[in-house]
């Protein structure tokens, strides 16, 4: 074969490959050119019979053709395979705007994440969580907290009592306040101490603004030198942390049997900025909790010497805190278990 013929073979092969439209034809072309008895294979075989000089130049030329053809075959193969895949994928078209595979989205109850928020805010201030029972005795719920049975405060509590059992010498009740944890904590721990108790409490009252069950958080701190000023500092910080903004607080003298002095604590209305609106009844203030310095009788009931130790306690309804922070306007919704409410005000666990 002459060099001219080799050139022709090369150009014919390359143009043939370029025109191929299927992998089958491409394979046929590969066999025809590069197979065991393919045209180019045969040419390479024929090199052995040539004189060294011709073999060197012609061999070089044949090899160049072989490389080019191989490369052309591979490029074509890649292109054809890709085209074939594209064609296949085109047949797999779906409407991606169809709804996704069904998967229910779970949400935590708003009170649940408020409990976590409150617990965290108080933990940051050094208050460690403790617990107490929901069913308790009159002693722990009232008497130990300096509310003897002839105390007018008892009737304010609308207590749920249990039917007395034979031989029962102390009435059992549903705790009306998380303060029932206080005396237990004092008996079980040694000061200095800072504890918080969060839980369900119960009062026999049901109307627009009362549910017979609600939640409270209780804080108790006992140390050598804690004063009313520290109570104020802790509440200011706690409420600011919880509401995630600077809140004004106002302390008003009040009365709780288990603290002396006692105070009710208002926050500046977070809806109107203190200018007066429906939520704050045009006063600019919203009452959020009660607090005070732990009464010496309560310390004594907890086995703590009031001449050595002093401290403060506070208690706060969590439904109210939740309603204020998250804009829920009907207390009863908390316990109605309506899916629509839980979806709207609940949060996925990942967002807590």
């Amino acid at each position, binding site marked *: 074969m002459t060099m001219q013929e080799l050139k022709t073979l090369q150009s014919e092969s390359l143009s043939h490959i370029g025109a191929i439209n299927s992998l089958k034809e491409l394979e046929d072309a590969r066999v025809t050119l590069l197979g065991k008895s393919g045209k180019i294979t045969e040419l390479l075989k024929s090199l052995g019979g040539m004189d060294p000089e011709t073999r060197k130049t012609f061999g070089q030329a044949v090899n160049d053709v072989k490389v080019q053809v191989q490369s052309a075959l591979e490029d074509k193969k890649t292109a054809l395979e890709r085209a074939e895949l594209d064609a296949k994928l085109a047949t797999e078209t779906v409407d991606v705007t169809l709804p996704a595979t069904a998967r229910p989205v779970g949400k935590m109850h708003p009170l649940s994440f408020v409990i976590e928020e409150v617990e965290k805010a108080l933990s940051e201030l050094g208050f460690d969580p403790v617990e107490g029972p929901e069913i308790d005795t009159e002693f722990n719920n009232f008497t130990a907290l300096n509310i003897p049975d002839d105390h007018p405060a008892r009737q304010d509590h609308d207590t749920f009592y249990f039917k007395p*059992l034979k031989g029962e010498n102390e009435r059992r009740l549903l705790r009306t306040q998380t303060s029932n944890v206080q005396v237990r904590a004092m008996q079980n721990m040694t000061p200095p101490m800072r504890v918080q108790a969060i839980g369900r409490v119960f009062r026999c009252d049901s109307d627009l603004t009362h549910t017979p069950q609600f939640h409270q958080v209780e804080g108790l701190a006992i140390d050598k030198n804690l004063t*009313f000023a520290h109570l104020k500092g802790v509440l200011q910080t706690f409420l600011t942390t919880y509401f995630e903004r600077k809140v004004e607080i106002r302390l008003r003298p009040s009365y709780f049997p288990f603290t002396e002095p006692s105070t009710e604590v208002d926050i500046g209305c977070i809806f109107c900025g203190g200018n007066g609106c429906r939520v704050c009844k045009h006063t600019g203030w919203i009452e959020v909790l009660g607090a005070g310095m732990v009464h010496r009788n309560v310390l004594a009931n907890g086995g703590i010497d009031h001449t050595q130790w002093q401290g403060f306690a506070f208690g706060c309804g969590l439904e109210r805190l939740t309603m204020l922070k998250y804009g829920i306007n009907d207390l009863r919704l908390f316990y109605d278990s309506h899916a629509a409410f839980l979806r709207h005000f609940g949060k996925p666990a990942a967002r807590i």
Partner: protein
Amino acid sequence: MKFSLSWLKTHLETDAAVQTIADTLVKMGIEVEAVETTGGSFAHVVIGHIKERVPHPDADRLGVCQVDVGEGSLRQIVCGAPNARAGLTVAVAMPGAVLPGDFKIKESKIRGQESKGMICSARELGLGTEHDGIMELATKAAPGTAFADTLGEADTIFDVSITPNRGDALCVLGIARDLAAAGLGRLIEPVTALTFEQAAKQKAAIETDGCHFFCGIEVEGVKNGQSPAWLKKRLESIGLRPINTIVDIGNFVMFDLGQPLHMYDADTLKGTLRVSTAKGGEKLNGLNGGKHTLNANDITIVDDSGVIGLAGIVGGEETSTTEATKRIYIEAAQFDRSRIALTGQAHQIHSDARARFERGINPAMTIPAALHAANLVVELCGGKIVGMTQIGTAVPAPVVIDFDPDMVNRFGGLPMQPQDVKNSLEALGFGVTEQTGGQFAVAVPPHFTQMATPEDLVEEVLRLAGYENIPAVLPAAALNRKRDSAPALRLDRIARRQMAALGYLEAITYSFISEKLARLFEGGSDDLKLANPIDAATMSDMRPSLLAGLLDAAVKNVSRAEDNLKLAEIGRTHHAGGAEVLRAAGILFGKGQRHWQGQQAMPTVFDAKADAYALLEAYGIDITRMPVDTNVPGYFHPTRSGSVRLGKDVLMTFGEIHPAVTKELGIKVPVAAFEVNLHLAAKAVGKDKPFVLSQYQSVSRDLAFVVDATTPAGELLATLRNVDKNIVRNVQLFDVYSGDKLPAGKKSIAVSLTLQADDRTLTEADITGICDKAVEAATKRFNAQLRA
């Protein structure tokens, strides 16, 4: 308690503004619930009758009213109040009126509609805080009457809430005393002659330790009747209904000076009037209209006819004054706080007298109040005072408290000089004597009946100084923290988060349920029944299971077309003997959502099991290795439910709810559920194992066993796992078959064993050996045949 500004001014010389008085009351610890102004001039404000209200054509919230203001023709007024409606009598501010806040009323067009005036709310007229709608007036005055003419003289009514420690503030004099101490004016003390030599003819005696002092004044020749206008107005201003002059005087003096009085028709009394103690069983027809049967130890007033009153709480009908009364006996006594409280509680009587006695009355005011009342009777009803009887000592020696003035700082957190502390206490009426060493001996004035400790004095000084002046100080960081003191708090947090992650909506249901539900869920024991449930039919028993409340929630949601849901609750259940158990429960209900990919399956026992297992795995419990039994409570489907135990105690139950239960509750869709005892879950948490990443290849081998159809697959899997715990890494069940290709009563269970060692590549001999042992164990335990 209510009081009016004009009444207050009889005890307080002041020109303080209403707002200043209100703010000072709050600062002193007297909560102001409402301040309302009555009367006023109100030029150009007239009475109107709304004849018609139609919606505003261009504003959803507005209405167009036609109002009769006595002009002959109707006046059109646009009004946005939600309560505006035809038939109301209202206050109309006519063009030209200027309302508080310099709000000038003019004719205008509101969204294209003419409006010739404004219908007013209480707040717009400066008569109160109410602004949720327009005032609905009760007056019968004709349209066009000046609004001011329908009101009384201008006055301001304060409605305050008095805390139980402030018996001293349950009267106008006490309020005035606090305001005077706060610097708002000068206190005007009541002036009354303090003795009356002549003894009353009516005899009296104290036969109980429940009465510390008794004073009786007899007045004869009286003529009872309607009270004069000033007295009626006083009582009406604070919401009391005038009855007759004698009764009205008793009420007036109680609210004025704080001493409850009782007015007897002396001609109805038989023999000596005695303060006594009930034996139990006596009857009393109370002035409150109640018929009371007395308990032993009730504190009573008796005469020779028997019980004529519950002392300090309520008087009896037979001895009360009437229009015909000629001779009266005024009782002003000091009863024991505790006895009054217990007697009042027992009979559920809430009277103004009881409220004052159980909070402590000012003993220094007992005699002056009695005399003041007697003088008023003579002044208004004629007659003359016959005499006065006193038994006991009216004013006991003062309580003296040793007080270190530095305690205001050390305890109260407010730095204050001793002299300032002394001044504050004296302003409040305390007698302060300085002792050597800077200590004070502080004599408590008689009106503060509950003060006994230095902390009480700190509170007094602080409230006068103003709580707002106490600095806010953060305590130093807490040491010796006990972070692990409440692991249960973390237990419920894990459950809450995991349940939400598993697609559950978290509900919080009531801790009390109906007795029927309680019994259905294996509770309802006697010690968990409320004596005073808020609703005996639905909230009588403490819940033994969270599933009861969740099923109730399912009913509610299904009725709102929420019929494909997963609901969860985390909370405590209550059990006989007092145990409270923290649990997490979930229910899945519905017929399966319709979806373009195909309808979802109805929830089954295996959906509940999957979620229960996922929950327990969140605690780090290797739940798949724990055996399952089918001994479950009766509210579960008997053959499609199971439980997992920790020792004898049930850690978790799961399954489909018994169809009889769902039917009973009216749930028409299938329900699967599970409930986990989280206290037990905490105990089931395994120890952390060291981590080893094996360098050697793992292999898997499939085996199929033919066993009896009743053989529990879980037990077969456990047996296979236990063949060699070091090598058998996983046993995956991938097929269960029963049918034509097997003998009747048999099933085939196909599993894939994953085998791997930490220290070597398993040889073919190792693998065959394990497989042989697996087959041998299965054969031995379950009579299993290897399926060809």
